[in-house]
């Protein structure tokens, strides 16, 4: 919520005398006040204002009830959640993510929401295709109502394109392959500039002293098993899928030739000087800041971060589609968040009502206006596109990709956190150059072990 400086200052001063009085104010726990109060958790502070608005609207429409929104940063979110579940003071409703949803569902932490679908009259055809199904558990019950959708595209620095003699149009129809990288690698090479001004496709390019990298690199963020904003566009367009089936696959394909050769090519970009080293990428400057500082010409990132790229002073950004792969198609990961009710809630009715409200047009329109993410409800989603356009950001690339079916659903599987934990060091090791891409096959075996007892 916005507060003016003066009000905050006054509030801060007013708090001081209270310091002496609040000695025993410890102890919290959602839902212990009279009437209906529920607690809702989310991690993206950029989206918080929109949801605060939804909470206010909800309270107005349901007198006597209120929603208390708490935000925890992404790095801490899941651990804070599990500690709170174990501690018995968990929230009522949470923003759910595909990576921990299976674990929560299988341990009975989530309430089935099929009755909400009935009572609110939700028709999943109104929502972005593919998203609602992601939230059905292995037992066939639905545990999350769709909230938003996201996919991946290429963000470019228009000035750097121009400097290289390229135009945004040149980025529209590129393709890559594991052997020589295709027109995609040629473009990235052209956009890379070393400290002496030599471009990546010119002789004398010094790969150890690069000023501008053609393609940026994001560290962590599921880089091992998921790679949504890193290698997924390549592996997935190389005739490869994460597992034998999705959702709830049990045989993952990280030992597949096609996967390994995609990683090998992608990692090779670092050696050629077109992509920064993993050490640089995992330093205290994230991919967005680096882009904003003019160190990257292109960056593969998710739509939920698009707005940040357009907010850098002096940088004229744009959005271009991903390159096509050897199978002739583009492939970005289509993912989406959902809201779920925890089974430990003491206010199941109110919580379900809130979840229903969150997935309704009333709230999704508010989220659309904020132009931070794309709501899952199609009608609101269109409004979001307009809101982004009004803010000067053309997000049609994402919508076109989804409409053309150029996306793959994010993997949902049991033990996903363990899969991530196993693959991440293995992938990092490859990226640092400590191991061969073939070593990923060994990691893949460990992943298979995780499912051996199921």
């Amino acid at each position, binding site marked *: 919520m916005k507060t003016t400086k003066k009000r905050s200052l006054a509030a801060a001063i007013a708090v001081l005398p209270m310091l002496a009085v609040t000695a025993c104010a410890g102890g919290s726990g959602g839902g212990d006040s009279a009437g209906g109060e529920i607690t809702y958790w989310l991690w993206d502070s950029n989206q918080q204002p929109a949801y605060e608005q939804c909470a206010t609207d909800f309270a107005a429409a349901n007198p006597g009830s209120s929603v208390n929104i708490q935000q925890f940063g992404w790095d801490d979110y*899941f*651990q804070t959640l*599990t500690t709170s579940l174990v501690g018995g003071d968990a929230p009522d409703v949470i923003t759910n993510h595909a990576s921990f949803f299976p674990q929560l569902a299988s*341990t009975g932490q989530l309430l089935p929401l099929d009755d909400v679908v009935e009572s609110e009259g939700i028709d999943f055809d109104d929502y972005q295709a593919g998203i609602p199904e992601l939230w059905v558990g292995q037992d066939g019950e639905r545990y999350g109502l769709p909230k938003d959708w996201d996919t991946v595209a290429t963000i470019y620095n228009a000035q750097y394109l121009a400097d290289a003699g390229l135009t945004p149009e040149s980025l529209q129809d590129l393709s890559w392959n594991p052997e020589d990288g295709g027109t995609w690698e040629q473009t990235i090479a052209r956009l890379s500039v070393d400290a002496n001004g030599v471009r990546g496709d010119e002789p004398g390019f010094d790969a150890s002293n690069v000023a501008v990298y053609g393609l940026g690199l994001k560290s962590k963020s599921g880089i091992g098993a998921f790679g949504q904003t890193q290698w997924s566009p390549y592996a997935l367009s190389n005739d490869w899928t994460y597992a034998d089936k999705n959702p709830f696959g049990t045989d993952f394909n990280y030992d597949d030739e096609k996967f390994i050769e995609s990683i090998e090519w992608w990692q090779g970009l670092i050696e050629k000087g077109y992509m920064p080293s993993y*050490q*640089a990428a995992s*330093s*205290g*400057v994230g991919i967005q800041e680096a882009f904003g500082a003019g160190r990257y010409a292109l960056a593969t990132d998710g739509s939920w971060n698009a707005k940040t790229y357009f907010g850098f002073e002096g940088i004229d950004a744009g959005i271009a589609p991903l390159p096509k792969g050897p199978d002739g198609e583009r492939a970005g990961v289509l993912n989406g968040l959902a809201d779920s009710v925890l089974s430990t809630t003491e206010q199941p009715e109110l919580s379900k009502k809130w979840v229903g409200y969150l997935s309704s047009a009333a709230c999704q329109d508010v989220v659309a206006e904020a132009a931070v993410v794309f709501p899952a409800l199609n009608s609101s989603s269109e409004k979001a596109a307009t809101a982004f356009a009004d803010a000067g950001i053309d997000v049609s690339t994402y919508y076109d990709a989804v409409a053309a079916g150029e996306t793959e659903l994010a993997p949902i599987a049991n033990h996903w956190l363990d899969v991530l934990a196993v693959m991440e*060091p293995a992938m990092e090791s490859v990226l640092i150059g400590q191991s061969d891409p073939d070593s990923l096959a060994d990691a893949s075996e460990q992943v298979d072990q995780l499912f051996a007892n199921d």
Partner: protein
Amino acid sequence: MKKQEAIAGWMFVLPALIGFLAFFVWPAISGLAYSFTDFDLLTPPEFIGFDNYVRLVQDPLFWNAIGTTSYYVAINIGLQTVLALGIAVLMHRLTQSMVVRGIVILPYLIANVVAALVWFYMFDFQLGIVNEIIDWTGLDRVAFFGESAWAIPTVALINVWRHMGYTALLIFAGLQTIPKEVYEAGVIDGGSEARMFRSITLPLLRPVLAMVLVVTVTGSFQIFDTIAVTTQGGPVNSTRVINYYIFDMAFNRFDFGYGSAMALALFVLLAVFTFVQLRLTRADKSDLG
């Protein structure tokens, strides 16, 4: 009289005794018990016998953790003790100034996490002042936290920075207890500084050093805070020290049983190590008499 004193004795010790029983003894026993179970805190514990221990012996990450922690302790304590000794001797010889001692102990006053965050920033690959200086001298930048070979030494350096002043003061106090006559005699015998240091100071400091070592080594094995806010076990498991691994296993992966087994294994290892250390340094005897 005696009875009154006995009663008083028990009453005085009672609160501490309750604390001891409730938060040291009881957890030790239940920790032992948990180590034989499969316990995720959401459902009651399930007895599984020695399975956790079998798993522990075969778990490469556990041994990696022991190895990483030992490596860390070796660098940390080795460097810290040498530096602290040097600082203590310098202070002893040059100045009794309260200001100097105050400055030297400053890092100890701030939290481990604070020190970690500041150095995390200063060592940063792109933004850090240390790398700026390295760059300026013409050498290649170092990814202190991003390179697996550098990660643990860097964490060790941060903790050395934080603790060397405090340790120096401890040794300094020990230096004060060495009678000056001993030095005077050494001077008369024509000993040089270095020789006196080796033959007089060090041996007489042995009990103090031994105690310092025991406590700092034990403390060093508990390393967690710094890693939790900087590398979280990476890169490529090079900073996955034992405390962090146990914590991760218990509170992120919900495996309290296995976590307890590992903690017990650590306890045993530490106890043996301390015992050996005390034996080797003959810490309970002083050369003075």
